[in-house]
């Protein structure tokens, strides 16, 4: 169940990334790497588990399945938290910087000033 949850998370993230590619403003690519890496490793884990107990692998107890599903969902949540932290630190849109230091206003003012200068230069070459 953990492997399945991670694989579905990886597929959904890859589809979202592909829809916006080549732009990756929200850094969804990071999530793809995290979930695909985890899926590959859990796949190896599943293979070893199957080699140990082949009969029990495809007939798990419902309680074990539920526990594994909770674990998978929690792992997906941890991946999302890691992605969110990276997104806020890298801040590709400059939104955090603007919210904390009001730099966007300054930047906008600078942009408007630049446009005004350009217009002035066009009017008086």
């Amino acid at each position, binding site marked *: 169940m*953990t492997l399945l949850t*991670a694989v579905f998370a990886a597929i959904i993230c890859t589809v979202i990334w592909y829809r916006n590619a080549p732009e990756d403003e929200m850094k969804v690519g*990071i999530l793809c*790497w*995290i*979930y*695909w*890496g*985890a*899926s*590959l*490793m*859990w*796949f*190896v*884990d599943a*293979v*070893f588990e199957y080699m140990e107990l082949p009969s029990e692998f495809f007939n798990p107890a419902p309680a074990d399945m539920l526990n594994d599903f909770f*674990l998978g969902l*929690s*792992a997906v949540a*941890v*991946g999302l938290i*890691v992605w969110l932290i990276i997104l806020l630190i890298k801040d590709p849109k400059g939104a955090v910087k603007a919210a904390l230091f009001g730099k966007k206003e300054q930047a906008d003012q600078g942009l408007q000033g630049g446009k005004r200068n350009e217009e002035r230069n066009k009017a008086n070459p």
Partner: protein
Amino acid sequence: MACFLVPAAEAVITTVAAKAARSREKGSEIRDVLPEDAACGAVKIPLSRRLTWLSNLLWGGSGLLAFEHLWHGEIVPWFPFLSAASNPADAAEMLHEMSTAGVSMAALVTVVWMGVTAVTSLKGRRLSAFRPKLKA
């Protein structure tokens, strides 16, 4: 038990290698894959970027696996941090798991990364072969 330690160790090595490759590439002429650059320069993905893909895969996977071990109580917040390392019998089992499952995980991720790298290189080569025809 502690199988995630093997890919985590590989992740450390690849991160260092990616940083070294990036500093070496700073002055070189290899450019990133950009359509406008493709016409005048080499369509080649830098080694540092490819190594970053591998380290992202390894860090992501070993991070979530570490969380799974925490969930199962195999990682503890006190020394030696791995519950299996506290007695010799469990430690031997842990080392066996690291040498089998851990090494297999690291190997599979590396093989998949090599496949991705090979496919992107092939695509890049086709693109650079196609560019002059487009220009002509």
